[in-house]
């Protein structure tokens, strides 16, 4: 957490779209995006697992790309479009992923889950029908210690199928 005594005068104002809503917030220049989300904006769904970009628990989506929020400065979010796990249910892709994770056993302790969801959401947005290899590549930066990944991979495959089916039904 930033030392308030030193930074009050140095706070910078940023503005970005967070889960579909524009927000304005003042952040410390040295503050990470993870800290800003969790502490300043009280969105604690994004997790800190290692703080050095190794585990992916802090994954968020910035302008369609997955980034480690622990390695991103809050100031870098200025002008961007950001999605966290709290915004994942906003569309069909996110909902399909949530349902598939629940139904296939893709959630055990749940600490990696927000990051896994965001990595797989970004994948499905780019590539609605990914191969197993592409899924593995997409979540290779997200560590899970509980599931052995298999049911997570199955969940993403299922979500992809469900999403394609629901899209074709709509058409």
């Amino acid at each position, binding site marked *: 957490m930033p030392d308030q005594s030193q930074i009050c005068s140095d706070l910078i104002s940023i503005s970005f779209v967070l889960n579909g809503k524009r927000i304005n917030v003042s952040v410390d220049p040295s503050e990470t995006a993870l800290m800003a989300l969790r502490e300043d904006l009280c969105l604690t769904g994004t997790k800190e697992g290692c703080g050095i970009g190794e585990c992916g628990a802090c994954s968020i989506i910035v302008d369609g790309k997955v980034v480690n929020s622990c390695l991103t400065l809050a100031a870098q979010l200025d002008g961007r479009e950001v999605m966290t796990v709290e915004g994942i249910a906003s569309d069909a892709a996110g909902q399909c992923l949530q349902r598939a994770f629940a139904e296939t056993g893709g959630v055990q302790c749940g600490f990696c889950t927000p990051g896994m969801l965001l990595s797989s959401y970004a994948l499905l947005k780019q590539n609605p029908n990914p191969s197993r290899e592409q899924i593995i590549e997409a979540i290779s930066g997200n560590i899970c210690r509980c599931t*052995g990944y298999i049911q997570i991979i199955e969940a993403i495959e299922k979500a992809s199928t469900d999403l394609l089916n629901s899209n074709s039904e709509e058409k």
Partner: protein
Amino acid sequence: MTEKNSQIQAGSSVGKNLIRVGAWERLAGQARFCADIKMEGMAHVVVVRSSKHHALIKSINLDKARNSRGCLGIFTSRDIPGKNRFGIINKDQFLLAEDKVRCKGDPIAIVVGETLSEAQKAAQLIQISYQELPSIFDPEEALRPQAVKIHEKGNLLGSRVIKKGNPDEAFSKSEIIIERYYETSHVEHAYLEPDAGAAMIDEDGILTIFASTQNPHYDLKDVCDLLNLDESKVRIIQSPTGGGFGSKLDLNVQGFVGLAAWLLKRPVKMVYSREESFLCTSKRHPLKIWYRSGATKDGRLLAADVKIIGDTGAYASYGLAVVTRAAVHASGPYEIPNIRIESIFAYTNNPMSGAMRGFGVPQIAFAHESQMDLIAESLKLNPIEIRLRNSLRVGSQTATGQQLDASVGIAKTIESIKPYYDEARNKGPVLRNHKRYGIGTASMFYGIGNTGVQNPSTAQIELEKDGSVILYSGAADIGQGSSTVLAQIAAQELNLDPSTIKLVIADTGRTTSAGATSASRQTYISGNAILDATKKLKDVLVTHAANKLKIPRQRLEIKNYSVVDRKNEQKGITFEQLATIMSRTGVPLKWQGFFDPDTTPLDSETGSGKPYGAYAYASHVAEVMVDTLTGEVEVLKVVAAHDVGRAINPENVRGQIYGGVVMGLGFALMEEFFPGKTESLKDYHIPTCADVPQIVPIIVEEFEPTGPFGAKGVGEPALIPTAPAIMNAIADALGVRIYKLPANLERVMAACVLSKES
């Protein structure tokens, strides 16, 4: 549970894939893990830790730190109101060091700050001067008479001897004797959620601690002793817990946040960084194993002589449990008539080793399964065949002399993997020049629950006045899914939709002890406690219904929260009506259940006794490709057959198997924690999804008569055979065996060089 789970038909909940309790809140980012807790006026706690492996503390200067901005308080051992000792088995840990530190990371003081950075800044201003002592990092060295004493009572933690038959005579009759030495390394649990906790004093003056924990009722006892508080003054609530694998059985942050909140009368929070979690939480015990096996020329095991020396590090933690469990399981799942096993653990100045998924069995299984392959190889027997020939059966006696009466599924697990083994053996993939393909198998048995000691679980089930049902259990669900399984067990007995049962879990203010979430025990032991409570409630419900409806009990059944006439379902009485009748007539609505497995203590001289009420069994096959130019091992496929008694929730069982296999793969190939060197996930690698092989889980259901609906357990067994199966596959690929875990690039390359030479 939410209505989203209502796909489950009432009354048929056992064997169904009920969606995990808590899954939806985790998927929405709404689960509040400890690090997510925010309270009005919440301060932050950091710990000042030893930078020395072994030293006397000469002085602690707090003056500068005390005056640091935002510093609310600094506490050392002198500020602890109660007894400054804790530990799950041996009370040898200090919440804050007194005169001495025994390993790097030993806690010396806690600093509480208005903000985290203020606490951290103040902590940096604390000056500690030490007088260094000689350090010991090897358990054999620690056991030498002249070794410096790490604890006052000496460096021996404990030992366990198991004797059966006449091993000397059996070895003299053995037609083949295989003797080898094996070693395993320190392993880090690396759960995704670093340890965390928060504490506050509630409106009734109760110190309430939220913790990421595997055993809230144990935490309660040690916190009360540390703070000199009555158990009625402290409440531990398990927060959503991001994995544990054994390390969150220890009191990690609970004492620190409890002390700070109690002394300052302020809400506090503490979250370990990953580095702190690596530095000061327990590790898997590294074992040195000398293993001598004797067999006949047709591959029948006659004798085993095993010596195990383990390093428990600076504190005991669950060390004594590992000493014994490793010894008890040293035979493997085989009938060996003549046994001599000696297991000795010593203190060193390494980080504390404690419980980690399997309690020493993954280590000893590496040895006994390597031995099995070595015997098979020298007798030119098929590795599957030699295991089948020796496997435990109904009527067999284990090394401790326990006769197995039922649910001995080892042979079935071997038979289930055999077709996969044979298929792989017959086909084999096309090889490139520098790549070698290998197949390996391994088996294990695992006693469910604590070893030869009482380890009961208690639970309650309550009928509410509106007819709904609440299940109370102290069993901490750390991600493995116990809450879901326990609800399914109660629902099965009451013929209800399990998703409609309300759950109160792992809160010492509202639940009674279920014992630890360890030793793969919650399904079997807490499941039975819940079943006991549920049966009592059911009995009372049916009795009152019979009385009211004037229908014999035998004709009644429970359906959809009513007790109805089997012959005429229109005729019945609802739970709500029954609740009213019961309350009016002074009959309790809440019923208590209890279960303790039928065990006996192990004899101190011979180790004989009945350590467990039930055993799980498993066999795996691993296929690997070894790159002889790089030493890289690719695990292509693992087939994992597990006898779980009865799969209460098959998807959950598969989840445990997948997770266990992948953790076992890490244990086999990459995970090695170097005390004092390994700092974080940057230098300690655990498997990512890119490392995951094809995994074929096979659930074998060999009904356990003492289990709830026949169930046993799977959490730890899932991991155990994987590493030995992979090691046997590497040996098959190279014709050279590796005797130390993990088989990292260096060790595999060394084996490749030997392989080429031969």
